[in-house]
C-alpha cells in the first residue's frame, strides 16, 4: 500500500516525472467516477468524463495552489465537467412505469433475497437520481456517498452553504417522493 501524500506526487510531477500521476489516478478514480456516474447516470459517459477530468487536472496541475486538498480540487473539476456535459445533453424524462415493481426482478442477478433487496434499493436510488436536476444529483452524491459536509460541498461546487442546504433539502424531498411512490407500487403489486 502506498502511503505517500498527494502533495508529494504533485511535486514529483511538477519536477517532470509524469508517470507518477498514475498514483493519483489510482487513489482517486473510484470516488471521481462515482460522482460523474451519479450526475450523468451512464457508465460509458461517466468513464469518458472522469478521464477528461483527470486530464484537465494533469494539465492544470501547475495552477493548483494547494489551498484545498487535491481530492477537493479534483472533485470540483469532475463536478463542473459532468454538469456542463449533462446540461448540453439533456436526457428524456423517465416514467415510474419504467422502474421494476420489486426486488424479485433482481433475484436472477443476485445471490440471495437480501442481496436482491439491496440491488433493488440501489437501482431505485439511481432511478430517483435521474428524476432530479444534474446539480441536485451532484449535491446528493457528495453528501451521501462522499459523506461531505456543507463546507466541503461548497468548496467543490462553488455554491454557498445556505444554498446547498436548501437545494439538498429540495432534492431529498423529490427523491423521497419518488421512492415512496415506488414502494406503494410495490405494495399494490403484492396485493
Amino acid at each position: 500500500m502506498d502511503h505517500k501524500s498527494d502533495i508529494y506526487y504533485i511535486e514529483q510531477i511538477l519536477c517532470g516525472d509524469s508517470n507518477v500521476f498514475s498514483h493519483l489516478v489510482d487513489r482517486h478514480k473510484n470516488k471521481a467516477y462515482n460522482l460523474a456516474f451519479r450526475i450523468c447516470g451512464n457508465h460509458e459517459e461517466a468513464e469518458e468524463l472522469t478521464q477528461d477530468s483527470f486530464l484537465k487536472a494533469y494539465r492544470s496541475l501547475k495552477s493548483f495552489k494547494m489551498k484545498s486538498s487535491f481530492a477537493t480540487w479534483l472533485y470540483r473539476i469532475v463536478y463542473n465537467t459532468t454538469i456542463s456535459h449533462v446540461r448540453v445533453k439533456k436526457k428524456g424524462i423517465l416514467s415510474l412505469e419504467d422502474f421494476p415493481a420489486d426486488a424479485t426482478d433482481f433475484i436472477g442477478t443476485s445471490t440471495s433475497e437480501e442481496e436482491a433487496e439491496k440491488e433493488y434499493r440501489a437501482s431505485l436510488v439511481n432511478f430517483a437520481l435521474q428524476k432530479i436536476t444534474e446539480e441536485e444529483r451532484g449535491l446528493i452524491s457528495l453528501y451521501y456517498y462522499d459523506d461531505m459536509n456543507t463546507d466541503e460541498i461548497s468548496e467543490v461546487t462553488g455554491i454557498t452553504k445556505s444554498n446547498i442546504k436548501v437545494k439538498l433539502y429540495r432534492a431529498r424531498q423529490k427523491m423521497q417522493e419518488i421512492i415512496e411512490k415506488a414502494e406503494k407500487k410495490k405494495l399494490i403489486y403484492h396485493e
Partner: protein
Amino acid sequence: MNNQEKYEEDLLKKYINPERIEMAPQGFTSKVMERIQLESVHEKVGERSGKKSFVPVVSAAVTVILLAAAILIPGSQTDSLTPAVLKLINNIKSLLPELSISSMFRLTLPSVMMYVFVGGLVLTIFDRALYGIFHREDKSKVKS
C-alpha cells in the same frame, strides 16, 4: 428543526449505502496514462513543427538580405569580401559548361540574377540540411 438536523432521520440514508460506490472500470488508470503520454508526444511534435516552420522564415530573410545587398552595394565598391565572393563565383562559372542562357532564350538578365541563383542554390542546400537534421531528431524522439 433545521434541514441539517432533518438529515439525521433521513429516508435516503436507508437507501443510499456509501459503501456501494460505483467503481471505475478495469484499466481506467492505464487509459488515463495513455492519453497523457499521447498528449505529451503531440505537444513535443507541435513544438518541433513550430521550430520547422521557422526554417523557411530564416531562408526568406536571408534571401531578402542577399537581394538587398546585391542591389544596394555598388559593384565598384571594394572591400575584402567582395573580391573573394567574385572569385568564388568565377570559379563556379569556370567549372560549369559554357552555357549562355541569355542567348538561348534571347533574354536580357540583370547582373544581379547571378547572385540570386547562387544564393538560391546555397539556401536550398542549407534548407535540405536543416530539414534532415530536424526530421532525424523527430524520429528519434518519437521512438524514445
